[in-house]
Structure formats: structure tokens, C-alpha cells
């Protein structure tokens, strides 16, 4: 519903996240990282069964959206989820839903009066 300034900000922050997660492979990578608590690029390639090049690209997009973080460990890059971003997105949708609930109640009163 019509956003308050705080809500508009939360929504805006969530948009790159929704965009990044609008892809099945990336969503599978996120779920995998959530389940295992982290993993190397090689672990993730094995988990989602796509090429290393493709996985690297997907992980970069997730990192851009700040959904995952990485650090180099020896020759491999280690990845982990940044789950607070998912919570932000969830909160933004909840706030919008609550506003629509309120608007629909006002519509109901308006029509039934």
C-alpha cells in the first residue's frame, strides 16, 4: 500500500534482493548456503549441478545484492549467507501487507455503511 517513508526505504532496499532471487539456480544456492552454513565455490557447483563459471556468475550477483559474503581461503573462495537481508525483504512485504489489510477494512466500511 502507500508507503510511509521508512517503508519505502525498506522496500527499495529489498528490490535488488528480489531481483537477485528471481532465478531458480540462485535461489537453490541460497537455500544450500542456508542449510549448510557456508561452502566453497566447488561445493556449490556440486550442489546445484551447473558449471563452475555459471555458479561464479550467480554468486557474484548474489554478492552484489548483499545476500552472500565471501572470503578467500587458500585457493578457494568460501561463501556464506547474509540472512539479515532476507529478513529485511520479508519485513518490507509484511509492512505492505498490513497496509493493504487496513485499506481493505476501510473499503469494507465505506461500502457497507
Amino acid at each position, binding site marked *: 500500500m502507500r508507503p510511509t517513508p521508512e517503508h519505502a526505504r525498506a522496500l527499495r532496499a529489498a528490490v535488488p534482493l528480489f531481483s537477485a532471487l528471481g532465478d531458480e539456480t540462485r535461489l537453490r544456492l541460497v537455500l544450500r548456503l542456508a542449510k549448510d552454513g557456508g561452502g566453497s565455490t566447488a561445493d556449490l557447483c556440486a550442489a546445484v549441478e551447473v558449471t563452475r563459471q555459471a555458479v561464479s556468475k550467480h554468486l557474484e550477483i548474489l554478492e552484489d545484492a548483499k545476500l552472500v559474503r565471501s572470503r578467500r581461503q587458500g585457493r578457494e573462495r568460501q561463501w556464506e549467507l547474509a540472512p539479515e537481508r532476507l*529478513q529485511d525483504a520479508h519485513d518490507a512485504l509484511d509492512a505492505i501487507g498490513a497496509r493493504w489489510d487496513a485499506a481493505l477494512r476501510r473499503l469494507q466500511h465505506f461500502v457497507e455503511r
Partner: protein
Amino acid sequence: LQIMNHVERDIVVHAPRSKVWRAITTLSSFGSWFEVAFDGAEETFRVGATVRGAITSQGHEGLPFEAVATVVEPEHTLAFRWPHLPQPDEDAGPVWTTVTFTLTERGATTHVAVREEGFDALPASRRRTDAERNGEGWGIQVERIKRFVEG
């Protein structure tokens, strides 16, 4: 497997569908319950026409309201696109989402469903936030993700 990036809400109204349809498509009525004062340039939602006004809700008075209808299927579907405008300190364009009202007759009552979607549409330029917070327990996060994902 799909990310949940829409909002759906519904309500049953004790009124005939035609009455509910007028309440959502006639701008003076829409403005009453949605809390927006329209500028008077348009009387109803029409496909392709932009309607403008100002929010009258307490605490948010004067915020701009803008919407462009994309579907007007009498007594059944009203859809419009609207911008979620950035704050002055944000380096971003508006995020446009789509709102769809669907009316269904249920005896003497009307079921009203509203769906807002398009939260994955990137604005013209992205704002990068540097705020990083500490994560929480993984179990909770997995539950959250599961709730968040459908299919």
C-alpha cells in the same frame, strides 16, 4: 521453486459486486477509503490515464499519489501501476509495482482480492547500502527462507 515477491490480501464485503466496483474505480470513492485527495483531472480509472492526488492519511498528508490503470474489466478486475518514490537522500529512481483488485460474487456478498507485485523490478539506479548487521542463528534463517519461498 520461486521467491515470494508479491503481497496478497483479501476481504469479504457485504455488498453487491457492482457497488464494490464503483467504490474502487470512481476516484472520489476510492479517495475516501484509500485516503487520497485527487486533483480532479480524472473521474474514474481509465486504462492508460494517469491519476494524481495527495495522500490525506494522518501523519502522511500531502505525499504524492500517482497511478496508471492497466486493466479495467468492469465489475471484475482493476489493475494499476504506481511508483514507490525514493526519499530525498536516496540515489534511486521509483520502483513501479502493479496492484490488481479482483472481485468475485459470493451470493449477496463480494470477495475482494488485492495483489501487489513487481518488487523485483530494479529502479533506474540502485542504491547501495553499506549497513551490515550480524546474522542470526541458521535454524531461524532456514525457517524464514522456507516461509519466503513457495513451490
